[in-house]
């Protein structure tokens, strides 16, 4: 299967990034964590938006929890 036009979500410096196959191949594999592979940039961005939304929800839940505790 040809992955040269694939897009990836990676975790680097505690942040999610959408990156092309070409750019990914230039990175040192010790400097990031590969999450998932997508057919298109749009698909990767759509997943990225979901991940960000989930992180915001998780942060809000933590804040609510702290508020209740005080």
């Amino acid at each position, binding site marked *: 299967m040809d992955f040269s036009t694939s897009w990836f979500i990676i975790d680097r410096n505690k942040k*999610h990034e959408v990156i092309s196959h070409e750019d990914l191949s230039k990175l040192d594999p010790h400097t990031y964590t590969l999450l998932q592979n997508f057919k298109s940039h749009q698909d990767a961005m759509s997943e990225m938006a979901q991940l960000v939304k989930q992180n915001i929800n998780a942060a809000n839940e933590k804040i609510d929890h702290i508020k209740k505790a005080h």
Partner: protein
Amino acid sequence: MNNPTQLKSGFHGVWPDVLSPVKADHSLDLHRLESHIRTLLYKGASGVVVFGECGEGPSFSHDEKTQALAHLVKEGIPSNAMMLACVDSSAPEVAKLIHLADYLKLHAVLISTPFYYQDLSTDGLVSYFDFLFEHTQKSSTPCYLHLLPNKVHHELPEAVINTVLDKHHDRIFGIINQTGSSSLNQDLLKSFAEKVLIYSCLETDIKTLKSAGIISAMANIIPKVVLHQLHAGEDVQALQIPGLKVKTSDERLVEFQTILAQHPSIAAYKYLLAQVYKNHDWKLARPPLSNLDSTSVAALEKSFATFDLHPNFE
């Protein structure tokens, strides 16, 4: 040991028994399924088994399976990189799935014994397989006899396997043992290794069986470790994982197996995949399965943290 020169050419490499992601309404999430398969192929899997044991096959309808496979092929997943597990109790429904696999030119189909609520006779089981092969005569899709855990599936007795192999040898490429029994692997090798290829789904048995391929549940999470183990053969090399004490793939598989042993397997795999992909939606199982309870989650998170997964290398 199988001798492929005398037998049909079976599948090679690691084929994850792919998990099926569902949405909050429990419908199949086609986009996440596609992305998961794409990621596994990128990490070195030769292909995937869809709607198998880990893929909650019995929970999905024929229409859902058709729609999913059509979507995957349309989105560029190579059809010859997919095997379809045909789990059903109705022979006509299984025949339809074989036709579907043939139409889509899938790599192969896995055919198991039906679910049933009373004991099945040898004659009954042989007739069941006769029906399937007679009603799919024009199909050129390779078939594998798929042995599943006895608690949910009827055992496939040796006598039935023998008869079915003799009658339908042109269609059956191998036997896949997914019962979880190592001793059954040895029995199958003794009885049928001259006739067909024998595959085990136990990752820790790869070396013993020396088969060219494996259908693996663990490969959903650690495909590269399973791949390493498959290709390492007798001479297992240590895995070079940065920051981790040097370990063999054997040891990593046993560690992983120990983590999972305490939990309902499919829900646990999904939970771990949610951690790997950092997407909570992966935690959802489809009824009648349930998501992991809070006690299991706490225990699983603790042991998985100790496992210290390195997704780029494992």
